[in-house]
């Protein structure tokens, strides 16, 4: 599934890129899509390809165009230009009810006047599936999201987490080819959210014929945890598409580096490099460093339990954030390190060159 490919290979249709096997089995293809609301450009010349069965995440800050892209795929918005294909079928102008996709809405959008079972069975009902079959299939879907026994309740009688599961069951009961999820976990508290992240992945694996998931979020951890591939959005454009590893370890520019994880930017010989905080080692006195070694002063220390975060001011008027596991250190000992002079080191391969893909990005 994670067949990799270049970081931006799929961004533009002019690149005949991804691996041959994937190009024959695309779930979603968006080409040259542009969408404006009045004077505001929500999405500009956007192209992306999602492979069948993939867990694909649209990641970006609010207003970056990720939800607009999702809504265009769902059929709620008509793009100003460009087109959308679902499994090779052009659907740009098709209404939502003619597309083989289902959506899990951010606010769940459960029908308040229907019971949970009626909500889940709704898609089957409007397609004319018989009463017995739709009850049975709705029951199965509720079991799949691990929510049996609430069939007769109204949505208002459920907790936020339960509603979320009903919304999911209502979408998957129709066996869509593509499932769209618009920040579905946004309204849940942290613990529940983490639990649901794993469950969503489990459900996707469990579905017999794998459904393609397109997931919108602004939460980088969520994106890294669940995705096969991630598209990072900014200002209505895609900055980078890649696996979580590629996005995190080889971001193409400062935006991606900063949005996914904490970024340390260093300028050397007019080029900009990124070093992740956990890749930097603080050297003990007299210890030899790796290929790169710099000196600095510890300005801030934050003890985070499992790790400690240091902010180190370098001699070259730069600042680096360093994360260190508290293997041998304690809260008392790390806090004493404020103001101390330190030497930092990292391996050559852990400094990745930024802005390498500028030209391709311009396409």
């Amino acid at each position, binding site marked *: 599934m994670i067949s990799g490919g270049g970081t931006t290979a799929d961004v533009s249709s002019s690149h005949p890129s991804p691996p041959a096997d994937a190009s024959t089995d695309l779930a979603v293809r968006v080409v040259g899509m542009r969408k404006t609301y009045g004077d505001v450009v929500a999405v500009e010349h956007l192209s992306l390809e999602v492979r069948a069965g993939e867990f694909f995440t649209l990641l970006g800050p609010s207003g970056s165009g990720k939800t607009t892209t999702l809504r265009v795929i769902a059929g709620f918005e008509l793009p100003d230009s460009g087109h959308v294909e679902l499994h090779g079928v052009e659907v740009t102008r098709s209404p939502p*009810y003619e597309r083989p996709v289902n959506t899990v*809405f951010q606010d769940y959008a459960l029908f*308040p*006047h229907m019971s949970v079972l009626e909500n889940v069975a*709704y898609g089957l009902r409007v397609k004319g599936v018989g009463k017995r079959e739709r009850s049975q299939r709705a029951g199965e879907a509720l079991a799949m999201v691990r929510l049996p026994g609430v069939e007769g309740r109204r949505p208002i009688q459920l907790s936020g987490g339960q509603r979320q599961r009903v919304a999911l069951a209502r979408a998957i009961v129709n066996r869509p080819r593509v499932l769209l999820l618009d920040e579905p976990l946004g309204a849940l508290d942290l613990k529940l959210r983490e639990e649901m992240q794993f469950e969503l992945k489990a459900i996707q694996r469990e579905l017999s014929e794998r459904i393609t998931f397109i997931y919108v979020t602004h939460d980088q951890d969520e994106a890294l945890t669940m995705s096969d591939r991630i598209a990072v959005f900014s200002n209505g454009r895609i900055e980078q598409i890649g696996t979580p590893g590629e996005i995190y370890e080889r971001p193409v520019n400062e935006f991606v580096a900063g949005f996914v994880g904490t970024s340390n930017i260093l300028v050397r010989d007019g080029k900009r490099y990124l070093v992740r905080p956990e890749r930097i080692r603080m050297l003990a006195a007299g210890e030899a460093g790796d290929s790169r070694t710099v000196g600095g002063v510890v300005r801030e220390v934050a003890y985070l339990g499992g790790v400690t975060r240091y902010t180190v001011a370098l001699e070259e008027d730069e600042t680096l954030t360093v994360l260190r596991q508290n293997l041998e250190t304690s809260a008392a000992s790390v806090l004493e390190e404020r103001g101390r002079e330190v030497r930092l080191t990292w391996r050559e391969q852990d400094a990745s060159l930024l802005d390498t893909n500028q030209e391709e990005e311009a396409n």
Partner: protein
Amino acid sequence: MIGASRWSRVALGVWAALMMAFLFIPIAIIVLYAFNPSNVQSWPLDGLSTKWFSSAWHNAEMRHAFWLSVRAGLLATAIALALGSMAAFAVHRFRFFGREAISFIFVLPLALPGIITGMALNSFITFAGVSFSLTTIVIGHATFCIVVVYNNVLARLRRTQTSLVEASMDLGADGWQTFRFVTLPVIATALVAGGLLAFALSFDEIVVTIFTAGAQNTLPIWIFGNIRLGQQLPQVNVVVLFVILVTLIPVALAQRLTRDTGLLRSRARPPGALPQGTGQLS
């Protein structure tokens, strides 16, 4: 009211009681008069009797006026339901030039004194050379009945998640199915409440009716005429009692419908559950 003294609370209670008495004693007296055995209104009553009920019922003029009022009320309500809900949908769903103005014009007849609406309609009807009839009464009543339905439906639509319609379409329902299975059930109680209020408003309307009825008598006009001339007062009292009931019941029902729609019932909601943004009117 922490810190409010006992006296101020007592004073407030007395004031509230006086207000209620001021509002409801006249109505209570009318109700009592309906059971007055004598045909002269004098106090205290000589006893209680229902003998005027049957004579009121067999009064041909009264029956004619009553049926005219019922027909006018039903027709005005039907027009209000159709036009009011369509207008609410248009204003809620679409952004178009003049939207605010249209919204204002719809609500205006409720704020406008009836006498102005009445005079305007009267001169227009005369100018157009149309003869006064049931139709002209219905048109007059529809002007303010539309507002009631429009306001109720619009308020309901605004409190309903817009994503419900999208969710329905997303799940495979076309426009008609979405209307039938989602939109209509969600606004149903608002429609019924608006319709009941509209009927109640129309049934006892007098100012606009005077200007649009010509020589016809609706029930309120018949009552007004008799009271002014001091005729058939015992029967009028009975009819007034009846009108009170006919207008009170729909208003009370409408209140219940907009409060307790079943969409909003929060009974058994687990603590910490998110409030659902649907429905509630009052």
